[in-house]
């Protein structure tokens, strides 16, 4: 026997629909409360004085709880970084796109595999080496060997003046 749609069926459907909206409205705040709060978001930028950094040296600063590497590269390093062919790279990116001012490489010192801090001037490509699971990065912070999927991230930054970098 064919079932006829009755007034009661409509009431059921309408009740479920309103109920679902109600449950969603309660569940969402419970989930969203775990996202970064206003005080965490407020710490979004850091200014760094880099006047004391000599060529061939790296400093590490904390930005949003994460280390940022600021490396003043030597001329040889810049030449090396620019000479790498894009076909050799797992995640092809030109050095020019990563370091707007080729002397200064500013990047998140966070391995893109599982988030460890790579070690400076180590590994097979004279760049960084992650001790956790063995990812090798070159002098431009590009992934060359190991499990990391992408190059180390470049944060948003700008030179406020000749000696000050504002990250974020």
């Amino acid at each position, binding site marked *: 026997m064919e079932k006829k749609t009755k007034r009661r069926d409509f009431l059921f459907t309408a009740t479920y629909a309103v109920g679902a909206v109600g449950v969603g409205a309660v569940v969402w705040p419970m989930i969203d409360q*775990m996202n970064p709060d206003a005080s965490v978001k407020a710490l979004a930028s850091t200014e760094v004085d880099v006047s004391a950094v000599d060529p061939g040296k790296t400093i590490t600063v904390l930005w949003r709880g994460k280390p940022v590497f600021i490396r003043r590269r030597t001329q040889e390093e810049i030449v090396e970084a620019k000479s790498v062919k894009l076909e050799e790279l797992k995640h092809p990116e030109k050095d020019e796109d990563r370091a707007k001012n080729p002397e200064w490489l500013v990047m998140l010192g966070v391995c893109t595999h599982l988030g460890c*801090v790579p070690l400076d001037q180590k590994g097979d490509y004279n760049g960084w080496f992650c001790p956790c699971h063995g990812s090798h990065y070159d002098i431009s912070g590009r992934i060359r060997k190991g499990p990391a999927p992408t190059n180390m991230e470049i944060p948003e930054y700008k030179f406020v003046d000749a000696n000050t970098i504002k990250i974020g």
Partner: protein
Amino acid sequence: MSEHEYTPKSKVGKWFNDRLPLLTLANHLTDYPTPKNLNYWWTFGGILTFCLITQIVTGLVLAMHYIAHADMAFESVEHIMRDVNYGWLIRYIHANGASMFFLAVYIHIFRSLFYGSYKSPREVIWIIGIIIYLLMMAAAFLGYVLPWGQMSFWGATVITNLFSAIPLVGEGIVTWLWGGYSVDNPTLTRFFTLHYLIPFLILGLVVLHIWALHVPGNNNPIGIDIKKPSKDTVPFHPYIVIKDGFALLMFMIVFAFFVFYTPNILGHADNYIEANPLVTPAHIVPEWYLLPFYAILRSVPDKLLGVIAMLSAILILAALPWLDTSKIRSAVFRPLYKQFYWILVADVLILGYVGAMPAEGLYLLIARIATAYYFLHFLVVLPILGFKERTTPVPLSITEPILGGSPNFAAVKKKDDFKDQ
């Protein structure tokens, strides 16, 4: 549940029991018919219950002194160790208790694998057990983060970053888990909350695990169905209670050895250095009980596939009742399975060993072979074995072969040999 009707003797008891049948439940638990041939590998259920209660009690006490804040957590743990009366003892019991819990659960799981306890009609007991095991790993990981040492911090960073392997939403999920842009104070406070919650979830699941066990009754070393109650069974109390109690005492000796003589041998020295987001320790390894899965994660060169392989290695266990096609439960009557069983045990131990070693060169090669074999065992060996293997004849009951007229005396003899190991 109970095979016979129970009526309390006293009038008050009857009055109460008619309103809430707690006495019926107690009677069921004491009279519960248990196979009389259970060996000592069957005592780990009771031992695990002890471990859970120990962790809950010591954890409650630690929470009275611990402060879940990124600036104070490390200090408060040192405060527990130095200032709180018997704080050192309570914390060492809790920290080593986690290791003892996993030691017992691995024996419990491998006992099931040997005697086919996961097979029909006990699939639901098995799956609840796997869920408990997953929650145990979550609780252990979350608890390891709380002292806020270097291993805590970087362990938390690496494990939460596993979620970033998920395409598209991965990064968003990681930020959500952290409550920030890195592991920090919001992460610590929520980890503390969840670490406190999970043991009670486990407790609830343990009740279901035992309830589901009491429907078909215990499996036993020869893996045959038995009538209960019958000549093949003994009441749980006093027979099993005494046996479990004795095994528990032996277990507590091992436990006490670790707590009093080598309380830090299962931990990492790096965790006595306060968390520093700028420096990753040179060699990150998880606690020993997670090493086999860590080895599987690292043996796959791709990030997403590595995470998938690691999760599958655990979840594949839930499918085991259907992957093992053999109708015979106990390995005692499965000459080939018995050999593959011990190869699997060796394989997991090898994975554990290479998981603790640096992921390069020969170690990486061994890890890859062992990972491949692990999946091969469950996905290829077990399904085929059920059809190809020639099993030896199974006795008709537990009692019959011993009292004479055995259809297969040799097989029962073999069981006794195993018992001695």
